[in-house]
């Protein structure tokens, strides 16, 4: 049995090319000295990387995106835990409705969400605030957090908790010593996926963010509307480099497959 026939190999090669080519091109362009996007080129320069230093709003937007992603994902995960445990264990009235409600942001176009949040936040006085950003991002990353949390909650043998109870553990102890540690891999993966989605979000955020609360993608989006120079490519290259470093670090610490697939690594 040959798993990698010529066709499969060609397919994989094409797939990887399509995935990686744009990223590589962006990285190449980041090192060009020209004042416009030029590719290919044979001259190299770090000019556009130094240029980032002259735009502190990019740096600020980067940190804001990090915080926004970290915070909204953490809150989304915290909300997911009780929801996932309830959905996984109990057949209660409104269970389907609750699942559908939590998953619904996946179905609504982000443009629509953006317009809706813009109106809503303006009405309640949260227009253009970081709080507004966090709230809206919680909504869009919740499905991702819930998916993976739910997967690990469903996969858990209830008998394990029953065993702890029969040994005299209180409900709180069971939650802290047994349930949470066992769903932790799902929580970590859910958080990571939520973070990536938050960090990446531009369609909705561009409506909500104001000067001073722009996220990195929004800042870049606004920049290329007025400028044609390769600054955004050098910013992108930095983000790519940080992402790669983070993935390597995570892989060392956890194992990437386990993290992204949300599989618990202790092979029960």
């Amino acid at each position, binding site marked *: 049995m040959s798993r990698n026939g010529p066709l499969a190999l060609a397919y994989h090669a094409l797939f990887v090319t399509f995935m990686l080519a744009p990223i590589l091109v962006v990285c190449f362009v980041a090192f060009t000295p020209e004042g416009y996007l030029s590719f290919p080129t044979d001259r190299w320069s770090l000019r556009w990387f130094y240029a980032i230093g002259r735009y502190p709003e990019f740096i600020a937007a980067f940190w804001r995106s990090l915080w926004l992603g970290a915070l909204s994902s953490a809150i989304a995960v915290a909300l997911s835990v009780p929801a996932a445990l309830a959905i996984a264990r109990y057949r209660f009235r409104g269970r389907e409705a609750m699942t559908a409600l939590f998953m619904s942001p996946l179905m609504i176009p982000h443009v629509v969400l953006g317009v809706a949040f813009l109106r809503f936040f303006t009405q309640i006085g949260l227009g253009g605030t970081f709080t507004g950003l966090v709230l809206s991002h919680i909504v869009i990353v919740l499905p991702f957090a819930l998916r993976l949390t739910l997967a690990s909650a469903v996969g858990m043998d209830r008998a394990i908790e029953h065993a702890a109870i029969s040994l*005299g553990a209180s409900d709180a102890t069971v939650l802290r010593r047994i349930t949470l540690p066992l769903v932790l891999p799902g929580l970590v993966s859910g958080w990571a996926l939520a973070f990536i989605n938050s960090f990446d979000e531009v369609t909705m955020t561009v409506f909500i963010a104001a000067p001073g609360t722009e996220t990195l993608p929004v800042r870049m989006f606004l920049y290329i509307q007025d400028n044609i120079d390769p600054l955004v490519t050098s910013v992108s290259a930095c983000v790519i480099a940080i992402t790669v470093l983070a993935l390597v670090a995570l892989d060392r610490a956890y194992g990437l497959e386990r993290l992204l697939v949300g599989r618990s690594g202790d092979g029960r």
Partner: protein
Amino acid sequence: MTFLALEGLGKRFGSHVAVDGLTLGVEKGEFVSLLGPSGCGKTTTLQMIAGFVEPSAGAIRLEGRDLLAVKPAKRGLGIVFQSYALFPHMTVAENVAFGLEMQGVAADERRRRVGETLELVGLAAFSGRFPRQLSGGQQQRVALARALVIRPRILLLDEPLSNLDAKLREEMQIELRQIQRTLGTTTILVTHDQAEAMALSDRLVVMNQGRAEQVGPPHVVYERPATPFVASFLGRTNLVAGETVRPEKIVFAATGLAGKVRTRIFQGNHWLYQVETASGLLTVIRQNSGEAMPGEGEQVHLAWGKA
């Protein structure tokens, strides 16, 4: 007074009756098995004793006190689950120590008792391992140690040996019986394996469709099954003129029921016969004593002592 009493215990799931008016008394130190086909309500019964399923009828008393009023965490029962349900993120020693920790036993004392109990189940060398690093039989013994170490008032075992291969299962049966004898812990075992139930128990409860069909010592239940269901569930039986006759009780004799050997199968320590008679096809089991036995197609006479 009866140590543990199930009084008219019942459980229905919607319109389905899983356990139907089960009444049973268990004495202190006794080993009782709930035996019956899949879906007859054994696990449900055990879970009601453990407190994880709420009965829809009846009462459970432990030393005369209403057990249903006690929270599952306060019942002080040791449970070995069919899936073992070990804590996968804790080592063997931590698994076993968990119950003692919940009881507030001091660290020194805890360590000593964990060591003792692991010694008892033959796993002293494995205390630092995680459950995933153990074989099925070893995991099963950890589950047993975890349940025993808290000195439970009752040990509840839900098909604890069903995941093991035949040889290991037999070893574990012997070990389980020895441990239970040594500690004198009142034990209720759930199983659908009749050999296991008969090998281990002081008394059997043969269950069918949520009811106890017969309760008694294994040899009594086997020799004098109260209902056709019990007779057919416990080993091979012949039904001759409304009477059940165990295949190993039938001998070849000079006179008796005439028949013709249809098949003869050699099974090492015994021969298995199918004999055509006027009362239908009868199964006969004879010990292999090395003597010549009737062959296929031969005319024979069958006799058995009246029970």
